[in-house]
């Protein structure tokens, strides 16, 4: 049987979630290479959209790939190059972010960024029915972050929750620690924090703890880092919930692509991996001790 080549192109591990996603991609590739000896995988990570386009060009030009699994850095710039891959006859799986043009991909494993923000916002309103003062930490300035924040703002609109300030913590523990320290200096009373990401939540928690402040009732992170889920499960009042945005979706996508290439099972179509609220009740179901994230 002839070997087929699967290209996997993802953003580099520049923050916690992306790191998890890198891990699951690598893990899936290693596993599937064992399972399907007739498949060859090329995994490339890119630091920005241009580099990702280069990676995809290389895969097409030098490896003659039969399938591409891509988690686009940004939708617009990647649309053309991915379309070129599709035109070459290769199978295309798009993960997380959709392309700007419909119908290019054979399989779409979608995350839901506005939904992530909405679920987070709804949890905030449910926790603070009478309103309250919160601060928000945002990620790296990107479309993803914009969509999440918009979803969040829509959800808390009219609930009486007042956003004191927003700053970019860049999905980074150190940056969010610094920003939170300064928020604590600036506001004598903060009821809650939407950290929007578990890495940032860790920085925020450290800052609150160091300041010894007890006005902050809870911190809502996101993306489902295992340590944070464990704390939710164990009933830590500071971390009453989490919102999923599983980095493992890349693994699922790679696996489905492999199945699609090697069998006649119908795997094309669209799978949306919605963002789910994790509370102490269902935390156990989302706790994967072996995951690095």
């Amino acid at each position, binding site marked *: 049987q002839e*070997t087929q*080549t699967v290209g996997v192109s993802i953003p*580099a*591990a520049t923050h916690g979630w992306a790191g998890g996603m*890198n891990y699951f991609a*690598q893990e899936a590739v290693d596993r599937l290479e064992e399972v399907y000896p007739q498949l*060859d*995988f*090329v*995994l*490339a*990570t890119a*630091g*920005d*959209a*241009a*580099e990702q*386009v*280069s*990676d995809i*060009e*290389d*895969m097409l*030009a*030098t*490896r*003659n790939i039969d399938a591409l699994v891509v988690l686009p*850095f*940004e*939708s*617009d*710039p990647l649309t*053309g190059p991915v379309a070129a891959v599709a035109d070459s006859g290769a199978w295309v799986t798009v993960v997380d972010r959709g392309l*700007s043009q419909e119908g290019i991909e054979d399989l779409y494993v979608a995350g839901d960024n506005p939904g992530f923000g909405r679920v987070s916002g709804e949890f905030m309103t449910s926790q603070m029915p009478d309103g309250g003062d919160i601060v928000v930490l*945002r990620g*790296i*300035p*990107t*479309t993803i*972050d*914009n969509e999440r924040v918009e979803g969040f703002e829509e959800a808390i609109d009219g609930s009486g929750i007042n956003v004191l300030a927003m700053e970019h913590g860049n999905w980074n523990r150190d940056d969010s620690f610094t920003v939170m320290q300064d928020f604590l200096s600036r506001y004598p009373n903060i009821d809650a924090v939407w950290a929007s990401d578990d890495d940032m939540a860790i920085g925020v928690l450290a800052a609150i703890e160091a300041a010894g402040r007890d006005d902050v009732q809870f911190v809502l992170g996101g993306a489902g880092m295992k340590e944070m889920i464990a704390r939710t499960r164990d009933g830590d009042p500071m971390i009453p919930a989490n919102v999923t945005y599983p980095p493992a979706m890349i693994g699922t996508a790679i696996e489905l692509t492999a199945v699609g290439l090697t069998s006649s099972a119908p795997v094309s179509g669209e799978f949306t991996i919605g963002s789910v609220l994790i509370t102490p009740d269902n935390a156990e179901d989302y706790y994967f001790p072996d995951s690095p994230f």
Partner: protein
Amino acid sequence: MTGAAATAPQRRDRSHSLLDLHVLGPILALAALILLGTGISATNESTFLSASNISNVLSRSAFIGIIAVGMTFVITAGGLDLSVGSMAAFIAGLVILTMNSLAGTVESVPMLVLVGMGAALSAGLAAGAINGFLVTNMRIEAFIVTLGTMGIYRSLVTWLADGGTLSLDFTLRTAIRPIYFGGFGWLTWPIIVFAFVAVLGELVMRRTAFGRYCAAIGSNEQVARYSSVNVNRVRMATYVLLGLLVGVATILYVPRLGSASPTTGVLWELEAIAAVIIGGTVLKGGFGRVWGTVIGVLILSLIGNILNLTDAVSPYLNGAIQGVIIILAVVLQREKKAGT
């Protein structure tokens, strides 16, 4: 003058062999990389030496390459510019906004493209002039000036894009795609422009008074000043030239991705400076070599390309391999020089 003429040492011809090895350094490194790539692609079914791969590598080298040619002049004249990456992002953002906003009123697409190009070039010129002004007239350390403007342009593009992505109108994008992807077969426009800029740059560096002045200023500003060289004007010109070339690079960049975002051009400055140094230009100024820079750029692009040919290294370690190769490329060059 008695018999001195007879006994004075003959016009000494420098022993060329050593010099040549120094010159050969970057070329050897490039050759080694090409061999490595060919070797690797022989072990799997990949096609490293195909026209399409070569075309890809050369086309995408063009952005950094064009910028690095300008950087060669700045560094030769004893300066530095850390702002080029974010300058490129900012100019790309401006061009996209300009073209989008005119798309409604101006009908003719070629006209629009020309306006876009004009915008890119004038923005580049202005940005370069600002850096140049702060360095020459305000006499602030180039490192600080361009670190500052690097932050400023990066912020401005983030702000223009509202944290997200600025995208060109879809119809426009299709119209301008050929600027990046078109050309004569594998000889795409970016390759042609890069080659043109490189040849012209080499000519300017080696054959014009301007090139000489750059080297003179970089080696000893006082000497240049005492020799009637208008130091400020030449130094200013290097920054303006670099700004212009960033504009040119942006003209090629926008058609490729049709968008600009806060991550556009991140770390291009380091890559451009690295290419310049790998090529044999002296970081402290006084000696510059445009063709070396071109080789430096190719070396850097090839490393990425070759790493995509193989799964042998974990993608996590790509950066390490890159680092090792960059150091090795320069060792090759320096080892020979050590002989002198």
